């Protein structure tokens, strides 16, 4: 395939992901790889820009949860094809994220969406699920050697647990090694600052943007 053909295929891939059409996205992806395009070039040249565009459309109020979720699903389907090729070429993820909803809180959807968007932005995501105890957050962050810890809470009564997790991170000596991002309906930037988190995001699209801003890949690891 000539470079114009490659560009055309990548554009098609990007458009399919943005529109949440997984099958045509995968077909375009396989075609691009078959024509010799490097896996990392596909990731950087089509998939990450596609999810950036999805995030922008969400923030602009053009996209809502359905549009964002089908796009994230298309992205995920592509990543499953691409991941072995990326691993072979030792391409590193943008960072490793440990994610969960805090203890006492079983709200799942917002946190899961954040996970999907972070994967779409090239992060490796360890999703601990809901009702995650402070100890479990700390253990998982240590095990995964996480760059970022993401916490979610949907109710004002469970939100203070985020502060407990921060204390546990400090006590375990992990606080300096990772960044913390918090979100969820009752959470505010002021609250995030109070508990000493590094960032706050009001929704999944800005969470992935914020994550990239605050995580600087640790070199040599």
């Amino acid at each position, binding site marked *: 395939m000539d470079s114009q053909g490659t560009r055309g295929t990548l554009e098609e891939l990007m458009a399919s992901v943005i529109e*949440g059409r997984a099958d045509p996205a995968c077909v375009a992806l396989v075609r691009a790889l078959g024509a010799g395009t490097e896996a990392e070039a596909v990731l950087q040249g089509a998939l990450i820009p596609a999810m950036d565009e999805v995030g922008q459309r969400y923030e602009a*109020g053009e*996209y*809502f*949860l*359905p*549009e964002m*979720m*089908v796009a994230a*699903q298309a992205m995920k389907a592509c990543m499953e094809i691409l991941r072995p090729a990326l691993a072979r070429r030792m391409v590193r993820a943008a960072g490793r994220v440990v994610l969960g909803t805090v*203890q*006492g*809180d*079983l*709200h*799942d*959807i917002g946190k*899961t969406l954040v996970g999907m968007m972070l994967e779409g932005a090239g992060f490796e995501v360890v999703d601990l699920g*809901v*009702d995650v105890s402070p100890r479990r957050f700390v253990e998982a962050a240590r095990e995964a050697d996480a760059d970022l810890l993401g916490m979610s809470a949907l*109710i*004002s*009564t*469970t939100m203070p647990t985020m502060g407990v997790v921060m204390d546990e991170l400090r006590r375990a000596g992990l606080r300096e090694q990772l960044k913390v991002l918090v979100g969820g*309906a*009752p959470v*505010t930037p002021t609250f995030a600052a109070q508990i000493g988190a590094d960032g706050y995001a*009001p*929704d999944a699209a800005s969470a992935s943007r914020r994550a990239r801003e605050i995580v600087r890949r640790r070199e040599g690891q």
Partner: protein
Amino acid sequence: MPMTSRQRIHLALSHREADRVPLDLGGTVLTSIHRQSYHRLRQHMALPPSPDVPLMDLYQQIVVVEDDLLQAWGADVRFVGPGLPEPPRVEQCDDATQITDEWGISWRMPTDRGLYYDMARHPLAGATAAEEIARHTWPDPLHPARFAEMRARARHAVEQEGRAVVLGGFCSGVVEMTAWLRGYDRFYPDCIQNTALLGRLMDRIVELKAAYWERALDEVGPHVDVVQEADDLAGQFRMLISPATYRTLCKPRHRELLEFIRSRTSAKVFFHSCGAIRPIIPDLIEMGVDILNPIQVSATGMDPAELKREFGADLVFWGGGVDTQQILGSGTEQQVRDEVRRRIADLAPNGGFVFATVHNIQSNVPPQNLVAMWEAFQELGVYPQ
């Protein structure tokens, strides 16, 4: 003769000023109080302890507010809702209590520090065809247990207590129930990829709801002032689905249900929808919603003064009296008083306002803040005579 609660509510619902703004505590499953805060409030007010107070809603752990407190506070509304055919199936798992409801949806509350039940299993998550919807074991909306004491309770509230009656619905909203049966991770993509299946599910729920309303409205006869429906469609900052998706997929079902209810009663239609729902308020008005609950004052675009200006001629606002996310639970007594003052100033003029907290009073609310709210309401909720 002093005005009865029912007269007060009727004036407010006709956009007229009564002697004072009507007050609702526990008159709906959205304006009640979590059992923990309820017990603390009773203690603080030196009311006798009531450890066995029944729960109005098991999942939200909110109580049926007892008469002594309703009287002490002068609450104007009485809730009459359906009974359950049988208690939900409760199981004790390792780290949580799990309940399976009559729809086949499972809910879990963490054993350690759990405050609420949240969904854990969605019975129609795997459904791909209309036949699976037909085959699902649906609850019987006409089960006699639902209507067991309905007539007597509504009549008592109106005739003996002089209170206004809110008649509660059969289940949560059409869209919500659909999402719960499917699971949110399937529901949202379905809104684009599987609209036919979603439509079938919503139609089935509308059918069940209509059957319930027909019977329930027959039961209560004239002893009902407000019928309560709901659907949650928005988050803190915006709609969850686009207004366009709402209009093509959900609104036709809402319209069908609300038209059915309005053809069977002259009671006012109360519609709960929290979060940032401003883009679809005109749609709700167009479908005949009379009362909007709650005005989630902390959500984007939900400034009470603006909403009153824009929609106050068409809509009664029920709730929005005090923010329950930040102020009531973690604000100072002074902040609570200031908030009550501001909301009453914005919403009370020309009637069309029933004072209630934005959502159920959560488990973390200090009784001092509740008393501050009530005292400020007493002082400021009076209309000039």
